[in-house]
């Protein structure tokens, strides 16, 4: 018999730092050094334009401890994360089932797709004015913008994932006596899961970016609000702290999601690349 990969006996132990990690860390360190050099060598950039990394770290410590524009840095971050979580939860909760329905019941497609495509090309920010009129400068408004930014990726990727399930698997399930519900839960959804996760991943990042944008223009709390206040107060270091926090939280969300995916789909070690 041909060789087969031995089934995994135990959980793989944590590997020593892999080359990509080392390269990544080196690149970030290099950028920091460059940044520092630019600010330290007199005459390159003024501190007014770009403060040094140490100024930013100091500002970070201050913002973490003291209230600025209504909350500490953590308060602003918590406000953003809450709105984001509400928005993406609704987007995933409605978008994934809709994607499954669209793929599973083809007659629905001609009815839903045109409406969906029309709404998809209205940018999330175009919803800000109407959202403000409806809900004021509230969490609901921000969550709605997140939802609008996150929803399409959930629907489209789920629909694609379900539609791409090899029909031979459906036939196999049928000959083994499975009805529609069993086939959906035990064959279709698991097989489509990587695509669904890809959709969720894009939805998470789209939602996060749209939220920060919305916070720049509406509201009195949040990381977007924080950087807009930095601008008003002429504090570049505040803006940089806000921007770095936004980037770091976004990346953290993605890492957590990938971990969850690996836990939930042990049979599929490779993750599909998201198409943003």
């Amino acid at each position, binding site marked *: 018999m041909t060789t087969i*990969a031995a089934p995994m006996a135990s959980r793989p132990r944590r590997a020593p730092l892999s080359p990509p990690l080392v390269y990544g860390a080196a690149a970030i360190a290099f950028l920091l050094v460059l940044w520092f050099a630019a600010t330290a060598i007199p005459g390159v950039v003024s501190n007014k334009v770009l403060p040094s990394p140490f100024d930013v770290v100091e500002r970070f410590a201050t913002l973490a401890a003291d209230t600025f524009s209504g909350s500490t840095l953590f308060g602003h971050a918590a406000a953003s994360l809450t709105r984001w979580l509400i928005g993406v939860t609704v987007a995933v909760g409605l978008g994934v089932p809709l994607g499954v329905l669209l793929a599973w019941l083809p007659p629905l497609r001609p009815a839903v797709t045109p409406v969906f495509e029309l709404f998809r090309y209205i940018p999330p920010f175009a919803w800000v004015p109407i959202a403000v009129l409806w809900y004021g400068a509230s969490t609901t408004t921000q969550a709605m913008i997140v939802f609008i930014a996150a929803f399409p990726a959930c629907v489209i990727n789920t629909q694609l994932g379900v539609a791409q399930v090899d029909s*031979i698997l459906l036939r196999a399930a049928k*000959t*083994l006596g499975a009805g529609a519900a069993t086939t959906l839960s035990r*064959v279709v959804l*698991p097989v489509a899961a990587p695509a669904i996760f890809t959709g969720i991943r894009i939805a998470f990042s789209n939602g996060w970016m749209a939220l920060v944008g919305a916070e720049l223009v509406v509201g009195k709390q949040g990381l977007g609000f924080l950087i807009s206040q930095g601008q008003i107060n002429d504090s570049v270091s505040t803006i940089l702290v806000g921007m770095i926090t936004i980037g770091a939280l976004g990346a953290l969300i993605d890492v957590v999601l990938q971990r969850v995916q690996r836990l939930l789909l042990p*049979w599929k070690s490779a993750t599909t690349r998201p198409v943003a």
Partner: protein
Amino acid sequence: MTTTKAHGPTAKMDIRGVSKTFDTRAGAVHALDRCDLAIREGEFVVVVGPSGCGKSTLMMIAAGLEAPSTGQILVDGKPAGPAGPQRTVVFQRFALFPSETVAQNIAFGLRVAGVDRAERARRVTEQLEFMRLSQFRDAYPHELSGGMQQRVAIARALVVRPEILLMDEPFGALDAQTRTVLQEEVARLSREMNYTVMFITHSVEEAVYLGDRVVVMSSRPGRIKKEIAIPRDAGWRRLDIEEASSEPGFIELKREIWALIRTEIVRQ
């Protein structure tokens, strides 16, 4: 007790007057033309024919996965109805559920049928042993070679105790060595368990080695062109395929069947 007549009340599965036309954008494709084929209980029928002649279509109709344009499928004399575990299928492309382990794949049909946990475990274990898969019970399909995957697919189809096992070029996607091993495995299985099998292949050697009867189909639209009984007393399935295929009778039958297929391919 030997029945030489295929048609009649003894047929386990009776394919009667089955025609199939596909409506495609390029026009109607006439795939099958009034096919009649009766398979007796415990009989191993192998269908051969030029590629594209409608073998898979005929099997999908027999499985209830595709509706015939005319004609019908009877099992034990009654209309067969929709696809189900009465007629399980082994596909060329394995068709294992990728998110389930070997044991879960095999248990699939039993779980759907509501077989209780203990009985399920017992039958899955028994089937794993029978197909020599015990050590892979917790592996996922992508961790297995093609040959192992097809063993799992066979186990999954057998564990529900189908009335008829349908196999559509099950070894077509395997390398030559693996194929030989599995051919001998299926020979053993049919010897020991006496399953009723409809088996499609493009290998004449495989057909003569495994079959009780070889059915040759014409080129499209597929018709049953000729049926050739393999002498029971030849006992080729008891030998390994290497030995069997060098027996004079085996070679003669192989040549005869090849000639029939060749004229069909040329006719196309």
